[in-house]
């Protein structure tokens, strides 16, 4: 059983005991512990259950590669599932819960799956849930979703209680990894005067060397690391970050690094995580290597761990995984674990070595220490249920039929060799090469990821570069330090133990313990034709767990290659994608949440609307009042009241969001003639004209009123959502096509507050304000004048989007609020009231005016909307003219705009289609039209709608059927789209 040792532990502080709970059970650890070391120290080996078979699982590793020991951390607003205990720093009061079991971790009903393993082969879901097809969505998916997933997602109504932030950094060299290679590389670059950022994912620097106990330049690795770190901290051109994991390397030297600022001190007044967005001139990956498990039957039992992880627990945290540990290996490095255990007073059952002979310096040291070494030996299987009780041994090169000894032990330390961490090298296109002697993929220096200059921008150094001996690591990182360390004899690639294991053994050899993928599954996938590693991955789910195959990939590839009868490099690896380990969603959002998720644009009268209880509608980044409900009034009733007020007397609309683009210059007339479909250059100064803008396809893109301010300047009004887009459209043509035209465009949208005073009493209100003459004679319909109104300088447009007498008044934005209040006061005797966007929409629909985005969808040309009158026949060219000439655009068979009146007076559903009998060539239901705008008209007391109908204007009076909201049909008559004041007399008074 795992336990805390009486002495030692280079990272723990025994004077700082910390209480925590696991599944409600109180436990104690020390400052400097990880949750994994604290749990092991408290004797808690069982940490969770596996994904598919619900097998009992314990800690395997000591770092980011951990596949098993995932827990739910925290509670309430701070609950987070799937947290690795091996990378979670312990703090007082930590609460952890295990995952994926019911009813309890010790007794799990789902573990019956483990007994039924024969019925859950590779591709189980694909094979089982094929037919019948209609079951996919309603039967199979809910079943699979319920049984899938490890941790529970936080409750939907909970909100993350912590804050997160992002920061930008720039450097000449970014060094990733704070082991001895990273420290040496950082120091070398810093000594040259380069700006250096060094990031290390854990809290402690030094990597493996400080655990393995090398001697560097005559001092301990620990002392050497401390000296290097102190030197780096003392340099102005160096930034050293611990608890910071480089999660991804992207184009042109862009790197994301994830700093866990306050995970270990929850509630501190600090952001919990910080995302570093680093732009580096050069990236050095000193990311080390990850030890590989060995594939023997029962290698997933709690108590079977990686040999180097066992060493870490003993040396760093004074925790032993057992009282009597067996070490199994194919290389010399694992002997360091045996020696470390021995030195800590833990019994070593034996070192089980798959190699024919183990005679190197390290095995010799082990033998000298009295440790039993068994050569040419394999673990046939591990004995035990929820914990290891022993290992059965056989000859390595056998089928496992002859067990020659059963060795009692309560933990197993395994080492199958090492795989360099090549993830960050590979993220941005760095290629790998197969290293025969170490049996691993390492970065190919001839094919690095390329930067903007076409040169490699990533260098791998040290163990990450495939240099596994400590002496070579420092030389590879550019250091001349002299290293004393035991020489290692060659390893022997071992992909299965014993080498000729039979099926029953192979079906108990785990490759990916989190997703329960075994040697037999990969072999079955190969047999069933999955020859590509990417397909095998998806079919078996090998490497698809939250550890992303950090332990399982190479072992799985080797099994697949063997099954396919091809060398490993020919099989290749799956694609390495960021992030290296999961990063929090909170840090991706950073500060962009709540009120600052996106900028909010406010008109000059915004606060007034808010104070009056306006119901808001988002329009682009603007908020516009949808309606102004009074008291308990419903939105529907408020809209009807506002419409009746406008039609009956006078209403006010905040129209400030309307785009206002000033086009000015000697060539301004020529330019607006190209932009608009109609002839704008003939517009006299002082007048307004409604215009349409199309893209080069001829499709309608925006509309609005143009006012000619002077000989060389036009004020172009755009839709509220279209101002920025149309400005960009104008700039594109001016900068990239007609760059010799003398025209300048500026966006005046926010310079003016614009208020529409609308209704039969509109003129009376303005006359009460006093100032400029607003009579029909002085300011006729579709003209504009400048002057003072109520003492405010104003530009007044006689334009109407409602069919009523209407003035749109632009005043400097700074005076918008005051002018709005003057209008309210002046209009009081007429019962003036503000109206919102919904009333605006109904008013314009009653008049049959189109709305961009309702009647248009990017496939509609002006001719479809009865707007041929606004298309110039005189102009040789305008944007979209050529597009409109295409045969499909001039076809009589297009859907065209009509009005629609239901026979029963009901309101048609928005977007409803008019079905036709039969199918289209694509096999879909044939249709002959659709509803584009539909409202209840309080003016007419019935539903009114506009729609696009096949040859619509030719079919006036015809009754056609539309889909109703309930799935039935509604009959509607095709009518003129203008439902109110067809002659247009009311607006021109």
């Amino acid at each position, binding site marked *: 059983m795992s336990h805390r040792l009486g002495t030692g532990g280079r990272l723990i502080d025994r004077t700082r005991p910390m209480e925590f709970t696991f599944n409600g059970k109180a436990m104690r650890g020390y400052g400097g512990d990880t949750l994994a070391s604290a749990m092991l120290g408290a004797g808690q080996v069982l940490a969770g259950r596996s994904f598919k078979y619900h097998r009992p699982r314990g800690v395997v590793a000591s770092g980011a590669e951990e596949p098993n020991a995932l827990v739910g951390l925290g509670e309430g607003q701070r609950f987070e599932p799937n947290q690795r205990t091996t990378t979670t720093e312990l703090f007082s009061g930590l609460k952890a819960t295990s995952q994926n079991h019911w009813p309890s971790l010790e007794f799990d009903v789902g573990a019956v799956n483990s007994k039924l393993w024969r019925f859950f082969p590779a591709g189980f879901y694909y094979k089982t849930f094929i037919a019948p097809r209609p079951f996919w969505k309603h039967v199979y998916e809910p079943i699979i979703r319920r049984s899938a997933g490890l941790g529970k997602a936080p409750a939907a109504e909970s909100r993350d209680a912590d804050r997160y932030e992002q920061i930008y950094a720039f450097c000449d060299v970014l060094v990733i990894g704070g082991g001895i290679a990273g420290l040496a590389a950082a120091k070398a670059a810093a000594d040259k005067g380069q700006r250096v950022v060094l990031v290390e994912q854990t809290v402690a620097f030094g990597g493996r060397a400080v655990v393995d106990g090398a001697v560097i330049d005559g001092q301990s690795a620990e002392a050497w690391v401390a000296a290097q770190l102190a030197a780096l901290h003392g340099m102005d051109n160096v930034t050293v970050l611990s608890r910071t994991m480089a999660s991804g390397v992207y184009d042109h030297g862009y790197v994301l690094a994830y700093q866990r600022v306050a995970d270990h001190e929850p509630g501190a007044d600090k952001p919990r995580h910080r995302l570093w967005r680093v732009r580096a001139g050069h990236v050095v990956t000193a990311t080390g290597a990850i030890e590989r498990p060995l594939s023997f039957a029962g290698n997933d039992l709690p108590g079977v761990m990686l040999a180097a992880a066992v060493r870490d627990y003993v040396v760093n945290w004074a925790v032993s995984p057992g009282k009597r540990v067996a070490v199994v290996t194919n290389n010399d490095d694992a002997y360091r674990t045996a020696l470390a255990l021995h030195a800590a007073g833990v019994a070593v059952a034996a070192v089980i070595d798959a190699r024919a002979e183990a005679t190197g310096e390290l095995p010799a040291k082990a033998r000298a220490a009295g440790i039993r070494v068994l050569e040419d030996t394999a673990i046939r299987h591990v004995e035990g249920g929820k914990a290891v009780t022993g290992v059965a041994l056989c000859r390595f090169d056998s089928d496992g039929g002859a067990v020659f000894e059963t060795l009692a032990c309560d933990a197993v330390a395994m080492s199958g060799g090492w795989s360099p961490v090549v993830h960050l090298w590979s993220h941005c296109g760095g290629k790998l090469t197969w290293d025969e002697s170490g049996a691993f993929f390492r970065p190919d220096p001839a094919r690095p990821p390329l930067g*903007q200059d*076409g040169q490699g921008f990533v260098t791998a150094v040290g163990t990450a570069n495939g240099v596994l001996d400590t002496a070579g690591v420092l030389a590879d990182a550019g250091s001349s330090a002299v290293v004393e360390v035991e020489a290692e004899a060659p390893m022997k690639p071992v992909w299965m133990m014993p080498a000729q294991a039979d099926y029953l053994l192979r079906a108990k050899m785990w490759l990916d313990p989190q997703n329960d993928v075994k040697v037999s599954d990969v072999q079955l996938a190969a047999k069933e034709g999955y020859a590509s590693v990417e397909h095998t991955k998806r079919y078996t789910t090998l490497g698809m767990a939250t550890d992303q195959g950090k332990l399982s990939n190479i072992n799985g590839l080797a099994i697949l290659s063997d099954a396919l009868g091809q060398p490993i490099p020919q099989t290749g690896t799956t694609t390495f994608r960021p992030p290296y380990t999961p990063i929090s969603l909170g840090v991706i959002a950073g500060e962009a949440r709540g009120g600052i998720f996106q900028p909010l644009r406010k008109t000059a009268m915004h606060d007034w609307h808010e104070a009056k209880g306006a119901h808001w509608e988002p329009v682009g980044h603007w908020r516009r009042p949808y309606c102004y409900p009074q008291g308990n009034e419903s939105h529907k009733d408020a809209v009807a009241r506002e419409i009746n007020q406008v039609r009956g007397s006078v209403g006010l609309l905040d129209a400030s969001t309307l785009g206002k683009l000033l086009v000015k210059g000697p060539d301004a007339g020529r330019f607006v003639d190209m932009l608009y479909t109609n002839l704008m250059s003939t517009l006299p100064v002082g007048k307004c004209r409604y215009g349409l803008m199309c893209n080069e396809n001829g499709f309608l893109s925006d509309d609005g009123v143009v006012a000619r301010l002077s000989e060389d300047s036009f004020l172009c009004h755009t839709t509220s959502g279209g101002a920025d887009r149309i400005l960009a459209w104008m700039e594109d043509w001016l900068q990239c096509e007609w760059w010799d035209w003398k025209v300048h465009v500026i966006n005046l949208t926010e310079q003016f507050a614009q208020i529409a005073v609308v209704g039969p009493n509109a003129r009376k209100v303005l006359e009460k304000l006093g100032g400029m003459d607003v009579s029909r004679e002085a300011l006729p319909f579709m003209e504009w004048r400048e002057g003072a109104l109520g003492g405010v300088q104003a530009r007044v447009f006689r334009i109407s989007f409602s069919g009523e007498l209407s003035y749109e008044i632009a005043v400097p934005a700074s005076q918008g609020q005051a002018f709005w209040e003057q209008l309210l006061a002046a209009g009081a005797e007429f019962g003036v009231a503000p109206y919102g966007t919904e009333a605006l929409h109904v008013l314009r629909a009653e008049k049959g005016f189109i709305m961009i985005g309702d009647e248009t969808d990017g496939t509609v040309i002006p001719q479809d909307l009865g707007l041929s009158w606004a298309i110039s026949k005189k102009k040789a060219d305008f944007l979209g003219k050529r597009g409109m000439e295409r045969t499909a655009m001039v076809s009589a068979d297009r859907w065209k705009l009509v009005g629609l009146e239901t026979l029963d007076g009901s309101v048609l559903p928005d977007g409803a289609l008019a079905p036709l009998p039969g199918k289209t060539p694509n096999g879909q239901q044939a249709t002959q039209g659709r509803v584009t705008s539909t409202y209840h008209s309080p003016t007419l007391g019935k539903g009114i709608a506009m729609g696009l109908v096949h040859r619509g204007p030719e079919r006036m009076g015809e009754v056609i059927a539309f889909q109703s909201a309930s799935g039935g049909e509604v009959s509607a008559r095709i009518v003129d789209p203008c439902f109110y004041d067809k002659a247009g007399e009311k607006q021109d008074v």
Partner: protein
Amino acid sequence: MLLLTCPCCGVTAEETEFANGGEAHLKRFGPGSDDADYEAYMFARKNPRGVHFERWRHIYGCGKWFLMARCTMTLEVFGTYRAQTSEPPAEIVAKIKARRPEWEGF
């Protein structure tokens, strides 16, 4: 994320400060053009695996459009230049030829 240099204001900045505008050096075909020319102008794009000329706008900076020669495979940038031209400048072409001898030319 690419690193781009605006030739108008000289700023080198993150890709998020810019907006891509598709292929550069398109010739506009308006009224009177035949269907094939119009179709090519509107819809036919080179989309090469290799050297590509493209439009970018420094949208969160000086606001100017500019053009860039870039390798779509390696993301190597050969250079950026002002948009007021119908073909890439000679020095950009020379640089691409030096880096990509097999390039068929603009």
